[in-house]
């Protein structure tokens, strides 16, 4: 175990092995089974029936009503190195999800404790606690967290109603407690989404990257695997075939609270200055 995710050690005996996702986009066929499996299990409302023209992506983003999102990127680039030739097309598909950061800004800034670190090392919003302050929404460097505003859909289904709370992937917290793997990972036809103990996943990912590089895949990279990165590594990390921003991901995310101590001191200094300033207003002769 490299860096322990914040808050996880507090479970001492009740603590479980830290689990997560390794999403290997090099074998993602873009079927969206993960999106549907997630919605079926978590009974997530519909997210609108708008056609976007973003290739085959009509989900567009992770939000309160889509906790898995398959991105589609069409490129005119060489195909897989081992099968190069005829066509210059490349169609990237990536199933995005909450990263369950080791140092999670959403978790840190949540004022109510609605967001908490589970015994599995994951980050979950407790719907019985969240009061919809929205702080986590601005804190997340990936734009994952989102407040649910829903007008009931005109032609059903009835499960849509104004909600006001913040929702995101729970890594199927309830399923984990029952010893089942998360719905998306279970559904994935090609095991592009792999679930398991994080350490194991990291080893698997390293091997996978090595294989691809041996095959000459250029641009392939692990995203969020490194415990030294700005968020201490992801609990749900990725193998990408191009730079993160191509998939709509930040290339170098940093947990905002890393600078919090500095900010607090800074804020106290400013407060002090205010007192001095006010006092100064009473000093000196009349003008």
């Amino acid at each position, binding site marked *: 175990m490299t860096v322990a995710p914040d808050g996880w050690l507090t479970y001492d005996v009740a603590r479980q092995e830290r689990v997560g996702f390794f999403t290997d986009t090099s074998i993602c066929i873009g079927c969206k*089974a993960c999106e549907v499996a997630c919605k079926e299990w978590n009974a997530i409302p519909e997210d609108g*029936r708008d056609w976007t023209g973003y290739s085959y992506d009509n989900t567009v983003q992770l939000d309160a009503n889509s906790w898995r999102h398959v991105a589609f990127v069409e490129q005119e680039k060489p195909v897989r190195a081992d099968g190069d030739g005829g066509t210059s*097309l490349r169609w990237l598909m990536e199933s995005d999800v909450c990263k369950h950061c080791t140092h999670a800004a959403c978790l840190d800034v949540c004022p109510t404790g609605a967001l908490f670190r589970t015994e599995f090392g994951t980050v979950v919003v407790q719907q019985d606690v969240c009061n919809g302050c929205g702080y986590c929404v601005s804190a997340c460097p990936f734009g994952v967290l989102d407040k649910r505003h829903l007008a009931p859909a005109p032609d059903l289904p009835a499960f849509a109603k104004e909600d006001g709370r913040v929702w995101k992937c729970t890594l199927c917290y309830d399923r984990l407690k029952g010893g089942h793997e998360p719905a998306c990972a279970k559904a994935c036809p090609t095991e592009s989404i792999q679930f398991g103990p994080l350490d194991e996943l990291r080893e698997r990912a390293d091997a996978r990257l090595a294989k691809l590089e041996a095959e000459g895949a250029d641009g392939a990279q692990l995203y969020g695997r490194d415990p030294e990165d700005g968020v201490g590594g992801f609990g749900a990390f990725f193998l990408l075939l191009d730079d993160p921003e191509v998939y709509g991901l930040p290339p170098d995310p940093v947990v905002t609270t890393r600078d919090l101590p500095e900010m607090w001191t800074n804020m106290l200094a400013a407060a002090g200055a205010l007192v001095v300033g006010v006092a100064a207003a009473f000093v000196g002769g009349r003008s």
Partner: protein
Amino acid sequence: MPGLGTSFGRGGATTFQQDLQDSDCIVIMGSNMAENHPVGFQWVMEARERGAKVIHVDPRFTRTSAMATKHVGIRAGSDIAFLGGVANYILEHDLWFREYVEHYTNGPVIIDDEFADTEELDGLFSGWDPEKREYDVESWMYEGMELHGAAGQREQGFRPTKGEASHGGHGGGLRHGEPPAEDRSMEHPRCVLQLLKHHYARYTPEFVAETCGCSVSDFVEVCETLAANSGRERTSAFCYAVGWTQHTVGVQTIRSAAVVQQLLGNIGRPGGGILALRGHASIQGSTDIPTLYNILPGYIPMPHTESYGDLERYIESNTSPTGWWGHFRAYFVSLMKAYFGENANAENEFLFGALPRIDDDNSVYWTLERMLEGRVKGYIVAGENPAVGHANGKANRLGLSRLEWLVVRDVVEIESASFWYDGPEIDSGELKTEEIATEVFFLPASTHTEKDGSFTNTQRLLQWHWQAVEPKEDARSELWFYFHLGRLIKQKLEDSDAERDRLIKALRWDYPTHSAIQEPSAEAVLQEVNGWEIGSGKFLSGYPELRDDGSTLCGCWIYCGCFKDGVNQTARRKPHWEQETRVAPEWAWAWPANRRLIYNRASADPDGNPWSERKRYVWWDASHGEWTGLDVPDFQADKEPGYVPPDDAKAEDAIAGGHPFIMQADGRAWLYVPQGLEDGPLPTHYEPHESPFDNPLYSQRANPRRQQTDDLAEDPYNPVADDPGADVYPYIVTTYRLTEHHTAGGMTRSVPYLAELQPEMFCEVHPDLAREVGLEHGGWATIYTSRAAIEARVLVTARMRPARRKDGRPVHQVGLPYHWGSHGLVTGDSANDLAHLALDPNVHIQEVKAFTCGVRPGRRPRGGELPRFVAELREQARSRRVQEPRVEPEQARRT
């Protein structure tokens, strides 16, 4: 499909999905497997990760192409040119598996000297009759072998069976299963292999590149990869789907893959084979136990009006003296016993005389034509949506509007039930609700969770599903509907003495029912399908136990064994991790005889030893004197490799120990099909019925035998090739499915989670086409043919590549998913409205994978403007054509 049936003896996929993981090369063609069979595709990915080559040959760059190690883009409708090219390359460069071809195929067989090839007759085979527009197949026979049953019987109404009914096995007159004339050296100019060489000689890489619009190097790479991954040590597999079948040359396209796989020796071997990917849960089952006009369960031909009232003649003309079809009488008689019980007996010819007779074609589109003429009064539609899912949707909807009564059974209200108030023709004014006489009954159906039953999946596997919950309110299974409908009708006709009611009164129709709604027992039906010995009531364990004296009963001989030992074999669910081999024989039950990879005797060499250690599967165990291996041997277990049939041998005993294709009269796979196909013994490149191209090989442009609806007002055709007026419809259009939806959308446009994933009808076009006609990404396009015009959102993408003419001019291809209709959570125009009704002659399947269209920017006209818009363009095209009409050789030349 007769494509596989005539080549190998059975119409089913030759292998099973899991076996793909052992392939060294997988060619996916005519299929978008990753999108339409995502979970099956995991086995392709397994193979890829083990270093196998995955080649996708397809007009579009799809999610399958994205996963392939190689994608070759070709022009829609040029598959036979490509595959013929592969065959030619293999033969030219001597890359074929000589030993396999010599022993296991009819390559050495010498063909009648009357036979003339398309190369001689400019695109027609010998025997063409321009009046009838069909072939007399006599000259296609093996030398020294007259057409089976020909002896004085033709004038008495004998007809060779065709389509699904043709078992390929009917080359009669074979003494002990051996063709009269063979040349093992395969040098004889009229032996099949030489004919093949001659037939494909002009399919050079350059020809392929020109015709298919791919590069020579890409094509050669495919050939080399295939050859390098075939032979003793390695095997290659083909996967196809309706991208091959839905053409006027559909069956012949599959045949060309059969030819390639035979030449490479990839049939009946692990990691090899041809995997037909079916699109519906039980589409294989619905041909095995057919809801098709021309066959009875187990591919037994329906009696034909030409075959008179005589059982003997019917039996004789469908019995092959050699091979397993030698027991035809037993299969048929046992079926009649299952249908009519004691009412069918030897005295009354098992009621054969009373059975209804068919004509050459009573298929769905033939019915549609009669519907449009008002000659069909009543129609029952159960779990299908012709208003959206069938070619020329408008014709289908008009047809429904001319019925007296219509019953639609489905889970949601589909367009075929709602056409009378929200169909496109209501909006266009072509139909007025108050003028539609059709009486419509909509009956809610049950889902798979609400009934017991078995599906037969794409690999011939019967899998049982249990009822989980009771259907609500009026929702009922089809089992319930048809059982109680039959019960009511029998009741009402009890006292009738009309001759026409003889059969229905004689019908065995006593199934136990359960639960409050009196659901019939699906298991009881399955037991009847399996069959039992009438005397003892003992369940049969396989079709060899069937007898022709009426002492056994069996509802579908090829399914015999699915209830072996009184156990529902299809309900077996032993986890794969508890089974010894990846073949997992204890999961459900596969026909025939629970064999997962059929013709598997071919996985061993003629002497019965594995071709190689790496590819061992089934082999001869001399010590125990039996065939053994990972799977149930598809061969008589104790027939040794050296077995030579005595002259008087009949049926399976007439198949030598070295011939793995036991359903065929000669035990061989057929490179050349002397009988059973309508449009030729060898696959030949013909242009699609509607195509912007002329046939580069022959003056015969399209399949001469294709079925056309020449004088059907509802089905006008676009001018083709360089005909005047063709420029009105200058583009190629191809239709397809998306992962997120299922066929006509009844099962997915009604599901919120799926509707939101692909919410709108769209078309896929290349940036150049977008520029050419002024289409805007995200905007709207109107796509039109002489039948209809539809609108779709525009998705501009380089994944949609243009085909090229000789002179390099691009011919653009338009991609259209066909899931949308006027009813559902998400609605839109139906791509099938654009399609025509020219059909494949063997199976009467429509050509929706390649036809022509025009494209304009913007939304289509509304209301009455729409039909006017379509008619104006049609007239524009026609008026130009009438000046110099084109005469197709098929209409003029006799061969």
